[in-house]
């Protein structure tokens, strides 16, 4: 199976993660061909999940389709990269009915468009107008600070590191002062 995939899709990137889990990374235009081939020839009948991972440094989303054989003993992760700007990849709803809900989820959380999916409406959020929340540039704490408020009354928090430093310096100064005072006292007594 690996040889066929390597020849046909010009990829060397096949990983055996566990004995029941393989992973392959292919070009974006070849991914559906590969999925259909796995489905037709190698009995990967079930689409288990579509996942997405945001690699903001490398400017792309990694979309992974996880396929499982009909006896559920083998899983195959088929991964491809799509650009972060105007992210878009064709829908799989025509082949796998359950892809609709998974794509809807990703559309909401990452703002990826799936042409061919008729039902890309809001799933968990309601009237959301900000950046899609799972994109890396969306800072949830900043959003909370802008829109909501926490309870007051938690004052008195000390920065422990600074406090330790301050106390150590204070102690040192005190010690030095004491020493100095002692020295002065002894000097005075010497002078006498």
């Amino acid at each position, binding site marked *: 199976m690996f040889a066929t995939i390597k020849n046909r899709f010009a990829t060397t990137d096949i990983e055996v993660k566990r004995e029941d889990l393989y992973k392959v990374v292919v070009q974006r235009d070849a991914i559906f061909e590969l999925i259909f081939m796995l489905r037709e020839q190698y009995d990967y009948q079930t689409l288990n999940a579509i996942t997405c991972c945001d690699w903001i440094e490398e400017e792309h989303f990694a979309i992974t389709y996880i396929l499982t054989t009909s006896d559920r003993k083998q899983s195959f992760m088929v991964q491809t990269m799509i650009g972060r700007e105007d992210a878009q990849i064709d829908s799989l709803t025509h082949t796998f009915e359950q892809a609709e809900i998974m794509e809807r989820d990703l559309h909401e959380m990452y703002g990826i468009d799936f042409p061919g999916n008729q039902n890309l409406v809001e799933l968990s959020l309601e009237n959301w107008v900000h950046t899609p929340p799972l994109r890396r540039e969306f800072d949830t704490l900043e959003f909370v600070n802008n829109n909501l408020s926490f*309870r007051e*009354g*938690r004052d*008195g*928090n*000390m920065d*422990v*590191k600074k*406090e*330790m430093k301050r*106390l*150590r310096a204070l102690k040192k100064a005190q010690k030095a002062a004491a020493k100095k005072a002692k020295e002065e006292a002894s000097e005075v007594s010497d002078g006498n």
Partner: protein
Amino acid sequence: MKWSIDISGTLSPLGILAAMMQKPNTIAYPAVKKETAVGYRGFHTNLLVDCIGCANCQDVCMNDAIDMIKTDKEYNVKNSSQCIPRIDYGRCCWCSLCTDVCPPDSLKLDEEYLGVTQYASDFLYMPKDK
């Protein structure tokens, strides 16, 4: 739906009536109090003679629930920051990660768990010294 007579299926559920003879398993709460298990994760305690004010608990707390505050009580001489933790019970999830990382093992979770209040402003908790 087709209707047919199912004698055993109709009679066997009547066995439930035997439960009337059994002792009820109710814990009549205010009168009978069930002991919590040893090691139940309830409210915090902090032994001040051991606490070194290192703020490891504050660092590991993902809920930002712990404030290190100045204390006017007698503290450990090794407490180099003279601070002790105060817990925000509007944030705490009783995961006990703070007690796991405590180097002198002074911060612990106790069996006490009851906290009912009418005012949300009662949410700050100073761990008991034991």
